[in-house]
C-alpha cells in the first residue's frame, strides 16, 4: 500500500525505517510514514518542524535498538535479508576472500599499517602540542595568554611586576590573572647539586589553570607578597624522584639556590604548568625573586621579565579584555610619566608558547604532509591490488551481474572487502603509532630546558585514525568496485574479458602513476634535506667548534653577583688552562649557535635618534680575552680584549664586520666612539677591534650584527667555559668538572660536553625531517615499483594475443621491448611529472630548513628523475622477457 502524494522528508523518513528489522517494517511502515507525513504537513514554521524532527530522531534512536533486541530474543526469521544481515554476509564473504590470498593481503595490510601509523603518529604529536590541554589544566577554552605589543607592531613582549599588579587590580574581564617567569634552580638533596627547572608564579597561577594540589595547598595571599615567607610547591614527579614520595613532606624544608624553602604542597600527578612538555620541578612565588635569583627586578617598571595569563570571567571575550588591559596600561604609563609604548594582545591559550606556534606548527605540518603522502601511496597501492583481484574475478562478477545480482550489492561487497582489509591495516597502524610516539617522546630536542613529553594517542587521535582508515578503505575500494561492475556482462562473457580489462588498465595505470607522484614528492623532500645537511656540514660558521669542550653554568642559582661571576670565570680559566693538552681557554655569557639570543641597542653620538641612522639593534655577548683565539674567530683589525679591560677601565667594544658596515660604511671603525643604549642612560664605548662575521643564531644565517664586550664590563646570567684542546686529545670532561668543584662545589652544571655535539643538536629538526622523508620515500619507491611491475605484467598478459600476432607478422624483439617498456615509461612519466610539479610547489615551504639549498635544486630533481625511470626500467624487465617468450602459435591456438 502506498501513500500519495509523498513528500521529500517522508521519503527520507522511509529510508530511515530500513534500519528496523524487516518484520517490523512490513507491519508498521505504512502507518509510521503516514503519521510522519501528517505531522510534517501540520507543522507550521521552522520551530515546530524542528520539534518534529527532534521527536522523530529521538524516536528512531530509542526504538531501533529496542526492535532489534526484541527480534534477537525471538526465534530467527529466515529468508528476507535486512541491511544489517546483508552487511554481515558481505563481511563474512570479505574475510573468506582475504583468507584466500593471505600473502597478498598481508602485504597490503602492512602497507596500510605504515600509512595509517605514520599519519596517526603525526596527529598524536600535533594533538599533544597544540590541542590537548596538559594534565591539570581545566577548561582551557577560558584561559588566555596576555602579551604586550609595541607600537611598531612587534609582539609577544613581557611585562614588569608593577604591570602585573596593575592588571591584577583592574581584572578587566578576567576572573584570575597570573604572571610567571622561569628560574634556573639548584636543588640539593643528595651529594651533588642538580639543576632543575623552576617556575616563579604569582598566587593565582594555579587557579587560572584550574589545577588542584595532590598534597597540601598552593600559595596564599601572605606568601604572594614581597617579603613573604619562603615557600615552595613540588611537582609530583620531583616529589617521587627526589623525595621517595614522602607523605610527610609538607612543612619540611628544602634548599633551593642556597635558600631554605618550606614545602607547602605537591601538585597533582602529571601537572607541569601550562606548557606541554616543559618539565617544571618546583613552583615558587614570583615575590621571592630577589632572594632566589639575586636580582632586584620586582619594583622596576622597565624590568620586563614576566609572562602573563588569565582566565576569562563568565561572559567576557578576549577582545574586551584586550581593550580594558590596554587602557589600564596606558593609564599606568601616564601616571608613571612614561610614554605608553603599545597595547595589550590577548590570545587563546595554547600548550606551547605563542611565539613557537608558527615554527612548531609549520614543522608538524610538514611531517604530517609527508605522512599523508605515504598513506596515499599505500592506499593507491592497495587499490591497485584490489583491482587486480577484481579483474581475476571478472568472469565471476560478470556471471553474477548476468544472473541479476544488483550492481549496488556487488559494489557494496567489494567495498566491504576493502574496508575490512584497511581496518586490519589500521589496527597495525594504531600499534605502530603507540610505539612510535613512545620513541619520539624519548627525544630531547635542542633546547636548554628539560622536556618530558606525553605523545600517547588519545581517543581523539584514535578516532581520527579510524576515520582515515575507513575513508581510505571506502575510497580505494570504491574505484575498483565501480570500475569492475561497469561494463556490460554479456560483452564480457562473450569477449573473454578483454574489453573489460582495457578500461580497468587505465584506472590501474592511474593508481600506479599516483603512487609514483607521491614517491617523487617524498624523494624530492628527502633529497633536498640530504643536500641541505651536506651543505650544513660544509658551512663555515665563522668559528671553529672542533676540539672545544664547553661547561655551562648558571651562577645566579647560587646568588652570585657580577663581581663573583667574574671571579668564577677567572678561577675556572686558570684551573682549566693547567689541564694537560689544553691550548687555550675563554669564557662567555652566551655561545654562538647556543639557542639563546641577547640583543641590545647602540647609538652614535651626534646622529639623529632614528633606527638605522643613529640607533642600531645588535646581538651582543660578554667574552673574556681568550675568546677569539679559542673559538678561532678572526680579528680583521685592532686588538682582542686584555685583562686590562676590566671594571672601572675605559669601556671598550669589538664589533663584527656586518655591524661595522652598518655603523660606518667604508670606514675604519677602530678608535671610533659609540654609545651602549640611547638617550641619557647611554654608556660611551670605544671600538678597539673588528671581528670577522660568524653565525650566532642559526647555522648558515645571513650575516647579522654582533657586538662583543669584555665579560668584566658586561656580565650576563650565565658563564660558559670554553676549552680548546690539542687535536687528538681526549676530552677533559672529568678534569673540567673537578676544576669547577674546587672553585664552587655547590654550583650545578647546566650543560657539559663537546661544542660540536651542542651545535649538532640544532640540526635535529632537519635530521628528523630527512629521516622521515627518506624512510617514507624508500617505502614509497618499493611500493610504486611493485605496483608498476604488476601493471606492466598485467598489460603484457592482456595483450598477449596482440604480441603474438605482431611476432608472427615479423616484429623484432626490439619492437616488442619498445611496446612493453614504453607502456611502463608512459605511466612513470605521467606520475613523475605530476609528482615533480607538486614537489616544486610544496618544497618552497621547506626553504627555511634548507640552508640556502634552492627548493628547486636541479641536482635533486635530476636525481629523482633518473631514479624513477631506472625503477620503471627494472619493473619492466621481467614482463619484457615474458613478452618475448610468447609463442605466437600457442597464443593463437588458445583463442
Amino acid at each position, binding site marked *: *500500500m502506498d*501513500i500519495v502524494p509523498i513528500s521529500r522528508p517522508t521519503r527520507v523518513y522511509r529510508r530511515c525505517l530500513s534500519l*528496523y528489522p524487516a518484520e517490523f517494517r512490513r507491519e*508498521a511502515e505504512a*502507518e*509510521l510514514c*503516514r*503519521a*510522519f507525513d*501528517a*505531522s510534517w504537513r*501540520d507543522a507550521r514554521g521552522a520551530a515546530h518542524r524542528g*520539534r518534529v524532527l*527532534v*521527536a*522523530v530522531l*529521538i*524516536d*528512531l534512536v*530509542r*526504538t531501533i535498538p*529496542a*526492535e532489534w533486541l526484541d527480534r534477537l530474543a525471538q526465534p530467527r526469521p529466515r529468508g528476507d535479508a535486512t541491511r544489517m544481515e546483508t552487511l554481515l554476509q558481505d563481511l563474512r564473504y570479505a574475510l573468506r576472500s582475504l583468507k584466500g590470498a593471505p600473502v597478498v593481503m598481508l602485504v597490503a595490510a602492512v602497507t596500510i599499517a605504515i600509512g595509517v601509523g605514520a599519519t596517526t603518529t603525526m596527529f598524536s604529536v600535533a594533538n599533544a602540542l597544540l590541542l590537548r590541554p596538559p594534565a591539570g589544566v581545566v577548561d582551557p577554552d577560558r584561559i588566555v595568554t596576555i602579551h604586550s605589543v609595541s607600537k611598531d607592531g612587534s609582539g609577544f613582549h613581557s611585562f614588569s611586576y608593577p604591570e602585573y599588579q596593575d592588571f591584577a587590580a583592574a581584572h578587566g574581564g578576567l576572573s584570575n590573572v597570573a604572571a610567571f617567569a622561569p628560574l634556573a634552580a639548584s636543588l640539593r638533596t643528595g651529594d651533588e647539586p642538580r639543576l632543575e627547572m623552576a617556575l616563579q608564579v604569582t598566587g593565582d597561577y594555579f587557579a587560572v589553570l584550574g589545577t588542584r594540589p595532590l598534597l597540601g595547598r598552593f600559595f596564599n595571599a601572605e606568601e604572594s607578597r614581597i617579603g613573604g615567607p619562603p615557600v615552595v610547591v613540588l611537582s609530583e614527579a620531583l616529589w617521587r624522584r627526589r623525595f621517595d614520595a614522602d607523605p610527610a613532606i609538607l612543612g619540611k624544608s628544602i634548599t633551593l639556590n642556597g635558600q631554605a624553602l618550606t614545602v607547602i604542597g605537591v601538585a597533582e600527578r602529571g601537572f607541569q604548568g601550562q606548557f606541554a612538555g616543559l618539565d617544571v620541578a618546583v613552583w615558587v612565588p614570583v615575590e621571592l625573586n630577589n632572594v632566589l635569583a639575586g636580582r632586584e627586578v620586582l619594583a622596576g617598571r622597565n624590568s620586563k621579565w614576566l609572562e602573563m595569563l588569565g582566565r576569562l570571567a563568565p561572559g567576557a571575550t578576549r577582545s574586551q579584555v584586550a581593550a580594558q588591559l590596554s587602557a589600564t596600561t596606558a593609564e599606568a604609563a601616564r601616571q608613571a610619566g612614561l610614554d605608553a609604548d603599545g597595547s595589550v594582545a590577548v590570545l587563546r591559550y595554547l600548550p606551547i608558547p605563542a611565539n613557537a606556534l608558527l615554527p612548531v606548527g609549520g614543522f608538524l605540518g610538514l611531517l604530517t604532509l609527508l605522512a599523508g603522502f605515504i598513506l596515499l601511496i599505500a592506499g593507491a597501492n592497495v587499490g591497485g591490488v584490489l583491482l587486480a583481484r577484481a579483474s581475476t574475478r571478472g568472469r565471476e562478477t560478470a556471471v553474477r551481474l548476468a544472473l541479476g545480482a544488483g550492481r549496488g550489492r556487488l559494489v557494496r561487497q567489494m567495498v566491504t572487502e576493502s574496508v575490512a582489509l584497511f581496518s586490519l591495516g589500521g589496527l597495525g597502524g594504531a600499534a605502530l603509532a603507540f610505539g612510535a610516539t613512545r620513541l619520539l617522546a624519548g627525544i630531547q630536542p635542542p633546547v636548554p630546558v628539560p622536556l618530558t613529553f606525553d605523545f600517547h594517542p588519545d581517543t581523539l587521535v584514535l578516532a581520527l585514525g579510524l576515520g582515515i582508515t575507513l575513508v581510505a578503505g571506502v575510497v580505494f575500494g570504491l574505484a575498483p568496485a565501480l570500475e569492475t561492475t561497469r561494463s556490460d556482462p554479456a560483452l564480457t562473457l562473450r569477449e573473454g574479458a578483454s574489453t573489460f580489462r582495457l578500461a580497468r588498465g587505465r584506472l590501474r595505470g592511474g593508481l600506479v602513476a599516483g603512487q609514483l607522484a607521491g614517491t617523487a614528492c617524498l624523494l624530492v623532500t628527502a633529497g633536498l634535506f640530504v643536500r641541505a645537511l651536506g651543505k650544513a656540514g660544509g658551512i663555515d660558521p665563522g668559528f671553529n667548534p672542533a676540539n672545544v669542550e664547553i661547561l655551562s653554568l648558571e651562577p645566579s642559582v647560587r646568588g652570585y653577583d657580577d663581581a663573583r661571576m667574574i671571579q668564577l670565570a677567572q678561577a675556572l680559566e686558570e684551573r682549566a688552562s693547567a689541564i694537560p693538552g689544553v691550548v687555550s681557554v675563554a669564557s662567555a655569557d652566551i655561545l654562538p649557535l647556543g639557542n639563546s639570543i641577547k640583543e641590545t641597542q647602540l647609538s652614535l653620538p651626534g646622529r639623529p635618534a632614528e633606527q638605522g641612522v643613529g640607533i642600531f639593534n645588535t646581538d651582543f655577548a660578554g667574552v673574556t680575552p681568550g675568546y677569539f683565539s679559542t673559538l678561532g674567530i678572526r680579528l680583521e683589525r685592532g686588538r682582542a680584549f686584555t685583562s686590562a679591560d676590566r671594571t672601572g677601565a675605559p669601556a671598550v667594544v669589538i664589533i663584527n664586520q656586518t655591524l661595522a658596515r652598518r655603523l660606518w660604511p667604508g670606514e675604519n671603525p677602530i678608535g671610533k666612539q659609540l654609545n651602549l643604549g640611547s638617550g641619557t642612560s647611554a654608556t660611551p664605548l670605544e671600538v678597539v677591534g673588528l671581528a670577522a662575521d660568524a653565525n650566532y643564531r642559526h647555522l648558515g644565517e645571513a650575516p647579522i650584527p654582533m657586538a662583543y664586550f669584555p665579560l668584566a664590563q658586561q656580565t650576563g646570567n650565565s658563564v660558559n667555559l670554553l676549552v680548546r684542546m690539542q687535536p687528538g686529545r681526549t676530552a677533559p670532561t672529568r678534569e673540567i668538572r673537578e676544576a669547577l668543584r674546587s672553585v664552587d662545589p655547590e654550583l650545578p652544571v647546566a650543560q657539559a660536553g663537546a661544542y660540536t655535539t651542542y651545535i649538532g643538536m640544532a640540526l635535529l629538526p632537519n635530521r628528523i625531517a630527512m629521516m622521515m622523508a627518506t624512510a617514507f620515500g624508500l617505502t614509497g619507491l618499493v611500493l610504486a615499483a611493485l605496483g608498476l611491475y604488476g601493471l606492466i605484467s598485467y598489460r603484457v598478459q592482456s595483450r598477449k594475443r596482440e604480441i603474438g600476432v605482431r611476432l608472427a607478422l615479423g616484429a623484432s624483439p626490439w619492437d616488442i621491448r619498445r611496446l612493453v617498456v614504453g607502456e611502463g615509461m608512459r605511466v612513470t612519466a605521467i606520475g613523475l611529472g605530476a609528482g615533480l610539479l607538486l614537489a616544486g610547489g610544496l618544497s618552497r615551504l621547506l626553504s627555511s630548513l634548507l640552508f640556502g639549498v634552492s627548493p628547486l635544486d636541479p641536482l635533486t630533481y635530476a636525481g629523482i628523475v633518473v631514479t624513477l625511470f631506472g625503477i620503471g626500467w627494472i619493473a619492466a624487465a621481467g614482463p619484457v622477457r615474458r613478452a618475448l617468450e610468447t609463442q605466437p602459435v600457442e597464443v593463437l591456438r588458445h583463442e
Partner: protein
Amino acid sequence: MSELPRPASLHPRVFAILLALADGPRHGYRLMQELQEDPTERWLLGPATLYRTLKEMQRDGLITSTEGPDEESGGPPRRYYRLTASGHRAGAAEAARMAALVRRWEQATIPATG
C-alpha cells in the same frame, strides 16, 4: 480477555494513551497529536515509540484496534484504537492511585487546623 492484575502503577505514556482514548476511539496520528499538544505533559512522542506502545497495550489487552474508513481526509482506511473493559479498569485504578497520592501529599504539607 482475562482479568488484568491491578498494576502498581502504569507507565505515564500508557496512562496518557488510556486517558486520550477514554472519550472515544482514535487513529494513531490523532492520538500522537493529542498527546503532543496535551497542556499538562506535552509528550515528545515519535511515531515508532507510539506504535510500539500501542502494540504492547494491545498485547496486554488494554486496547483493541479495528480498521475503518478515514472520515477526516477521505484517504485510505486507517486503524482505529479503542479502550477495552480491562483498559478502562486499569485507567480508573491508576487514576484512583494518583488521587490517593494527591491526598497524602496534601495531608503531609498542609498544617492540620484544630
